[in-house]
């Protein structure tokens, strides 16, 4: 513990270096700006700015990406509360009570509470990260290729089945993502796979091209001329952001409970933030004295899910960094960026790159402070940004996508990849398939394949190592439980008359 504090002190030193701090501020600001824009979620923000980080050193790059991430998370909350527009899925729940609050003239207070809840939850999450990481690091060293591939399987299964919507469709997209990850040169044999003789494809599909196709272009294709996104006429000034004493009192315990829910789920690899926010909301509703207030502007319905999302996000960095297993698509993107920078997350990362790991933790806290400092005076600007009409926004965004992808390798071929994945993504979106598992599969795919092949090499091709090695056996047991739980819930659904599916959680 003393060591952890000492390391953290070192981390603050790294994060506060003017050069690093500058990129962090830059990231928070840009993330917030893009996150606020209607229809631009955290995933779009990170993918769009990902290419920018290729040119800077690893430490500031990852600090900037993390800044973009929480900046856009917070920006997304603004859109959700003031416009009823969840551009990042975890905010879907925030809309339910946040927007009615705006209509009742308390939108500012909802934003204020969101800010406090996220700051509090993030701080708790950071503390957990500090004290849990060294423990996990010790455990992680016991992990060989067998255990690593087993836990990756668990993460992928959880990511596929525990998001909203059909679990089978999630699994399908995960497998598709794993396949996309195999495109390019096979690391072990050097064979060109699925490149069709095209030279540019031998390095594989570019992460930025894939994610911008799926989260950018696909989204434009589905949204264009279909959804009318109206600007908000809500006016929020600095003064409005201060919640009343009664509101604060009402929001306090939901905030604590939301934080706890988030931390609990953060430790589980593969459970995305969306499901966490739904559970936090459902919990508040269940224990509320007067559940009928929910959906009509209950401040608890804003505080709890926002707190859950933020603590979950922080704790999520633990499996991402120490095991190399991202919890959701955003983490997968961050992980992908690290790998591009030549840094392999995993048990060795904390000891090999202490500057990145502890610098990142320290910068989380600094970033969250920055968010508050920035958002209080800038709220008027953000509200103005909400009024930019979609018809002007998407062509400009399209250009930034093209040039961003081009700049990663100075290759126009990558831009064509964006178009291809845009079409693929739009087809899957139209058929109600989730997009996020594709990125998760893509990033984990090559690592999973490598570890699985190594595990099989070491065990001379006996699959039973997954059951004879104790840690691996536990993980495989957890996988089996997950699958059984899905089968059980499917059997229950078939027996009962059709229910509303994803709506169930909220009705309960």
């Amino acid at each position, binding site marked *: 513990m003393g060591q952890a504090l000492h390391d953290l002190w070192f981390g603050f030193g790294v994060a506060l270096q003017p050069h690093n701090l500058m990129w962090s501020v830059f990231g928070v600001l840009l993330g917030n700006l893009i996150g606020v824009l209607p229809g631009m979620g955290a995933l779009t923000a990170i993918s769009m700015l990902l290419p*920018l980080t290729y*040119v800077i050193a690893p430490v500031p790059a990852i600090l900037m990406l993390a800044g973009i991430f929480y900046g856009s998370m917070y920006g997304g909350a603004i859109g959700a509360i003031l416009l009823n527009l969840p551009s990042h899925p975890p905010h879907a729940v925030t809309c339910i009570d946040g927007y009615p609050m705006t209509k009742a003239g308390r939108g500012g207070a909802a934003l204020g509470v969101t800010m406090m809840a996220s700051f509090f939850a993030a701080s708790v999450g950071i503390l957990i990260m500090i004290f849990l990481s060294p423990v996990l690091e010790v455990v992680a060293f016991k992990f060989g290729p067998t255990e690593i591939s087993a836990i990756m399987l668990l993460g992928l299964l959880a990511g596929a089945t525990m998001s909203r919507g*059909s679990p*089978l*469709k999630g699994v*399908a997209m995960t*497998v*598709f993502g*794993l*396949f996309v990850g*195999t495109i390019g040169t*096979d690391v*072990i*044999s050097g*064979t060109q*796979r*699925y490149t069709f003789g095209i030279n540019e494809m031998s390095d594989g599909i570019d992460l930025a091209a894939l994610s911008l196709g799926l989260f950018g*272009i696909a989204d*434009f*294709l589905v949204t*264009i*001329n*279909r959804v009318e996104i109206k600007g908000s006429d809500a006016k929020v000034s600095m003064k409005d952001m201060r919640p009343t004493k009664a509101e604060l009192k009402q929001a306090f315990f939901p905030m604590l409970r939301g934080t706890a829910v988030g931390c609990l789920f953060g430790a589980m690899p593969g459970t995305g933030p969306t499901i966490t926010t739904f559970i936090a909301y459902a919990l508040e509703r269940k224990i509320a004295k007067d559940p009928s207030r929910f959906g009509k502007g209950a401040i608890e319905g804003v505080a709890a899910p926002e707190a859950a999302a933020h603590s979950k996000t922080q704790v999520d960095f633990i499996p991402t960094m120490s095991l190399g297993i991202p919890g959701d698509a955003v983490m997968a993107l961050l992980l992908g960026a690290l790998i591009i920078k030549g840094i392999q997350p995993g048990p060795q990362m904390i000891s090999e790159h202490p500057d990145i790991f502890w610098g990142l933790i320290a910068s989380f806290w600094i970033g969250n402070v920055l968010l508050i400092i920035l958002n209080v005076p800038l709220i008027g600007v953000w509200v103005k940004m909400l009024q930019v009409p979609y*018809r*002007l926004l*998407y*062509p*400009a965004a*399209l*250009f*930034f*996508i*093209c*040039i961003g992808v*081009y*700049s990663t390798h*100075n290759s*126009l071929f990558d*831009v*064509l990849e964006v*178009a291809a994945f*845009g*079409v693929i993504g*739009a*087809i*899957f979106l*139209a*058929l*109600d*398939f989730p997009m996020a598992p594709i990125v998760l599969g893509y990033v984990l795919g090559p690592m999973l*394949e490598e570890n*699985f*092949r190594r595990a*099989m*090499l070491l065990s001379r*091709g*006996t*699959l039973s190592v997954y059951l004879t090695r104790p840690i691996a056996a536990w993980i495989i047991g957890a996988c089996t439980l997950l699958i059984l739980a899905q089968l059980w819930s*499917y059997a229950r659904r078939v027996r009962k008359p*059709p229910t509303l599916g994803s709506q169930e959680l909220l009705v309960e």
Partner: protein
Amino acid sequence: MKPLRSFNKDRVGAGVLILAGAAVVAQGLSYRMGALTRMGAGFIPVVLGTLLMLVGVAIGVTAEQGDFGTAESLPTEWRGWLCVLGGVVGFVVFGVYGGLVPATFLSVFIAAMGDRTNSIRDAVLLAVGVTVTGVLIFVYGLSMTFPLFTWG
């Protein structure tokens, strides 16, 4: 906006997955398979393709009866689709034959024309604005290598 013929989203999705899986397997079989002890390059892709097909079958079998993708949810939107894709492809084409300035201007203009509420005047103004900002940020700010004007 003419609606596509109504169909069951899950069934179509299942079909897409089965076809995709079959294609992955077919191509994957041309790489060395190897055995579990020493897996060749084709092993994992073939397994993944097979999984895709199996999941596709499972989705098809468990699909609920009836039509889901009806007129409201899936109208064809050719103008929007062509313009968005045209914007991206245009950026590549005019990037090679023209350079950054024409590529930016035309891709933004083409993309903007996809929205029915955009007038030609608005699209031109937007394209000019984005071109100026883009060149300032990427060429002068980040000194990216992309010729402003070029041919081939």
